């Protein structure tokens, strides 16, 4: 029957996954269980024709992440050693649904605001949040003739109760510029770690927020239409960037690569109860 064939199919696929899928091993088991979807590679290998149909990412977001990749890794894909931060995972989410997107106001330089919903289903329980950033990208480059100060107010709503509870008092930020966007920099990053930390830590699967962004000149004069940061093609709604530390054993942990640090599973000297942090080569001699 269909059901039993389905079970047989799933049993086969599970057996196959345990044997042949290196990449599915890269994903911590609880992520597979949570999302219920085996790893993308498993789908590619099992059904052979390119795996799950996947949503195409936003082109600006992809361009940003490719630039991030080039910053962090060599062409062969080796993580560059000159990095000091501890995150080994960066996830970029584009808003899944935009409601009530108020257009940017060309005169006052108010960026488009509105409700933003981010679905964080891909964040696994072993990925710990270190930093989160809202990323505004521009289509073209712009440089403001004089320093600009931008006011940003952000309200995080309880998704499940959004229409019942009043939004909490907005978190307001003052972002000091000068925002001078040269050719190569076409984005603004707004650090929202303090706000999102409790939500991500409590494993919220969906984040619902609304954000308003107003830029004025330093002397509180409104920007003319020409100078307004919105004097360009309509801004894309911001993406959400999460910098995470994947604590699973398959993820690369930079501090283990230090000469005298060893992973718990490594280092025969570890068994001799060597004190941490003492170069084991000395003991070995």
């Amino acid at each position, binding site marked *: 029957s269909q059901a039993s064939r389905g079970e047989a199919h799933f049993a086969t696929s599970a057996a196959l996954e345990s044997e042949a899928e290196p990449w599915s091993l890269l994903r911590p088991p609880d992520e597979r269980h949570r999302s219920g979807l085996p790893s993308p590679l498993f789908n590619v290998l099992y059904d052979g024709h390119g*795996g799950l149909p996947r*949503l195409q*990412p936003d082109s600006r977001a992809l361009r940003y*992440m490719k630039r991030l990749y080039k910053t962090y890794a060599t062409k062969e894909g080796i993580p560059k050693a000159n990095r000091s931060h501890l995150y*080994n995972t960066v996830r970029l989410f584009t808003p899944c649904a935009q409601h009530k997107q108020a257009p940017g106001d060309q005169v006052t330089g108010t960026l488009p605001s509105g409700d933003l919903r981010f679905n964080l*289903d891909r964040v696994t329980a072993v990925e710990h949040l270190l930093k989160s950033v809202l990323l505004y990208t521009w289509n073209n480059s712009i440089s403001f003739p004089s320093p600009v100060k931008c006011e940003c107010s952000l309200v995080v709503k309880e998704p499940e109760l959004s229409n019942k509870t009043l939004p909490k008092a907005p978190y307001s930020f003052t972002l000091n510029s000068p925002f001078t966007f040269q050719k190569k920099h076409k984005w603004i990053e707004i650090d929202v770690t303090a706000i999102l930390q409790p939500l991500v830590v409590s494993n919220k699967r969906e984040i619902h927020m609304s954000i308003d962004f107003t830029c004025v000149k330093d002397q509180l004069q409104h920007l003319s239409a020409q100078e307004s940061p919105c004097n360009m093609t309509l801004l894309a709604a911001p993406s959400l960037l999460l910098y995470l530390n994947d604590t699973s054993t*398959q993820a690369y942990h930079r501090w283990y690569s230090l000469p005298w640090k060893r992973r718990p599973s490594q280092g025969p000297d570890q068994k001799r109860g060597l004190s941490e942090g003492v170069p084991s080569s000395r003991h070995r001699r």
Partner: protein
Amino acid sequence: AQDTVSSELKKPLVPASFNLSEYFKQFLFPQNECELHDFRLSFSQLKWDNWIVAPHKYNPRYCKGDCPRAVGHRYGSPVHTMVQNIIHEKLDSSVPRPSCVPAKYSPLSVLAIEPDGSIAYKEYEDMIATKCTCR
């Protein structure tokens, strides 16, 4: 004891059928000794390029070749490896010779598109073999 010694001395040093070059062959380094080999693949060959954006080329490398008898100094093998070799040669050939396997790895950074359209940069441990050993 003198006659034993003298009879020993009369014995030929090497049996007549002994072939010296054969004898020394076992001490030559084997031609295809255990070492690191490249295997460059592109994710499009595996049809994974619809979700792995970078890197385009991936060289996991692999270890292949025979393990010489004197593995200690060359491969940092434990004494157990030599014992296993002696067991294979002298006592029981069903016990396998030591194998040529990776001893060290380096990580790999991957840029992938997730099924929901989000983009993930991840660094995975132990994805490229960088050193071989005999075990």
